């Protein structure tokens, strides 16, 4: 019985954690320019030197 309680609590925490990460990513604008981000990976970093 206490085992189930522990597992449910852990599942809840994990789920909420994932949700929070998603909401954070949304709010910090990481989904605002999907097309641009896809292209940006192709740009060479010129400040490497």
């Amino acid at each position, binding site marked *: 019985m206490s085992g189930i309680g522990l597992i*449910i609590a852990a599942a809840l925490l994990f*789920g909420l954690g*994932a949700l929070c990460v998603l909401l954070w990513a949304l709010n910090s604008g990481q989904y605002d320019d999907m*097309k*641009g981000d896809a*292209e940006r990976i*192709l*740009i060479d970093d010129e400040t490497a030197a």
Partner: protein
Amino acid sequence: MGTVTPTAAGIAWEDLSSFPRTNRDGRTTFDIAVKGARCANCIAKIETGVKSVPGVEDARLNLSTGKLCVSWSGRNAAPDVVLNRVRTLGYEASPYEAAAALDANAAEGRFLLRCMSVAGFGAIFVMGLMDAIWYGGHDMSAATRNMFLILAGTISVPVTLYASQPFFRSAYRALANRNSNMDVPISLAILLALLLSTAQTIAHGTQIYFDAAVMLAFLLLIGRYLDYLLRDRARGAAKQLAAMQSMLARRLRADGTLETVSANAVMPGDRLFVASGERVPVDARVEGTGVDADISLVTGESAPVLAGPGSLLRAGSIVAGASAVLVAAARAEDSLLADLARLLEMGQQNRSHYVRLADRAARAYVPFVLGMAVLIAVGWLLVGATVTTALTNAIAVLVITCPCALGLAVPAVQIVATSRLFERGIIVKSGDALERLAEADTAIFDKTGTLTSGKPELLNRGDIPPQILQQAAQLARASNHPLARALAAAAGDGPVAMDVREVPGSGLEATLDGAICRVGSAAWCGLPPGKSSELCFRAGDQPAVRFLFRDTIQSDAPEIVAALQKRGIRVEILSGDRDSATAELAARAGVLNWKAGVDPKEKAAHLERLRKEGRRVLMIGDGLNDTGALALAHVSIAPGTAVDAAQSAADMVLRGNHLLPIAEAVDVARKARRLVLQNFALAVLYNSTAIPLAMFGLVTPLVAAATMAGSSLAVILNALRAVRTSAS
């Protein structure tokens, strides 16, 4: 690739200081709408280019929206230098006037996504708890079962209430307008399911729909988000257009310098500088010598006319000859463009009367479902059941018949259909545009720029000695006049004559090899006037030569006319051009019904007349003078070469200037409509098998969940069929 406006690089002293905004932290940001950026190269080129402007600290281009955000601290960088840097890199750029409506749209998308993720989290979690009860409930102690239910309830009630806000709001809006839409039964089902489940949990009953409620919200939010993506993707292009469209004016200050202001800031009496090829921002009078102007906006006639000193040029006219100084005669809101904007608005209001298929289904469905629930409650009471049993069974019917699949039926088909059209080069701006296109029974084409390329073509090339053509082209290259440009294009690349003088209404003059050469009207070269589409050339004392031009017909124009007629659509041409030119083109394209010499207001009136006759008109046009008609038509398409205003007024935009995709769009739209109707039938069929069970109180929450997921799946699978090409 964008093109550089002829003057853009030349004027480095325009004053843009009214555009940058200073943020609270002291940094200044300046937003620029950039057109033509497509790939990583463009991003790198623009960002590094702009960052190298002295003072600029950061530049970031959003490729999805075309918005370049440039920032610096203090007052270090000059906005005009930044703007010109982007232009010299080869992209069209203009200051971005942030429209609040566009930001609100992005916020809506983020809100939907947030609701969807919250509902997704809730659905998975609650389903885990509830499924344990449905499948393993017999082996559970009553205490464990109760704990699971309470847990499921404490999660699903707040989660569902939060995530269902889009439905609640929409339902409330509809009810407040004494209307109903699909969101009314959805909201009702969600609220009642939560209420019933909570009551049953307390009473240790079995009718518990916590999982169904969350799942309902989740599945419906997927549909809603698909619908949003559909509108947003197309609006990405429109967003840029709206920004580009914000009219700017160059005002001459007393000291002779120029400042760039929004057209709304221009007062009558201001002196405006309009460069060759640019649009006149407000109604204005010509100062000094005359101006060659393209007034197709007012007349539809593409050949430029001479506006003499003191004559009035309407807003939206294009200066076709040399750059000119004009005196503003009216404010922007009193100018012709404002008239057009009003036509546009009228059209959009007109269109908002259109009831989407989903809402039409809802209007039939809602009374049916509510009536059924009431009947069942009454029936149970009549046979002597308790009030609780009667209510429980009535609510079960409401939950189980909730149009979950109906909510997915339309957006699922439309996103698949528009994706397919997108690949074929047709941008569809809204889902209901497809529904409206499927209903079209009349197609009206504009002539110039739509059925024709809008660019005159040299007709009598074979009669002209190549050397004469080259000489004439040297002069023609210096001008922005459409015929001169056509002449230059026909001659190919080559040198430009020095010191070309442009006389408005007449032509060009320059000295070549010691002889005075002239290109222009027949009178300018000492010939009697001929047809209107001609240029003459005279070198010194030699006899003058005529260059004849004709607007080229779009290669697939006859094909598209035939294709539409084969699909039962009547084709008409409505043109502002002369009778003879229109008749000739109509004959070549195979169109029997045509009307020439129609101005923008008459175009709109003609559409209104057809609408009253009960015809559903598909309007295809490209010019500013078509904008009102595009907005007023039942559905409208603009070619990719159309002016910005026409592209933003139209429901669909073709990516190239080929017309044949229109026939495919009609096919896809009709097929999508068929699939949507099939989906409705599927959803109703699925739900109605469960209704008898619910009526007799036999339905279990597990059946409810299975029906919901099953019918949604069937609907989505059916929607995918829209990708498959019919044998065309």
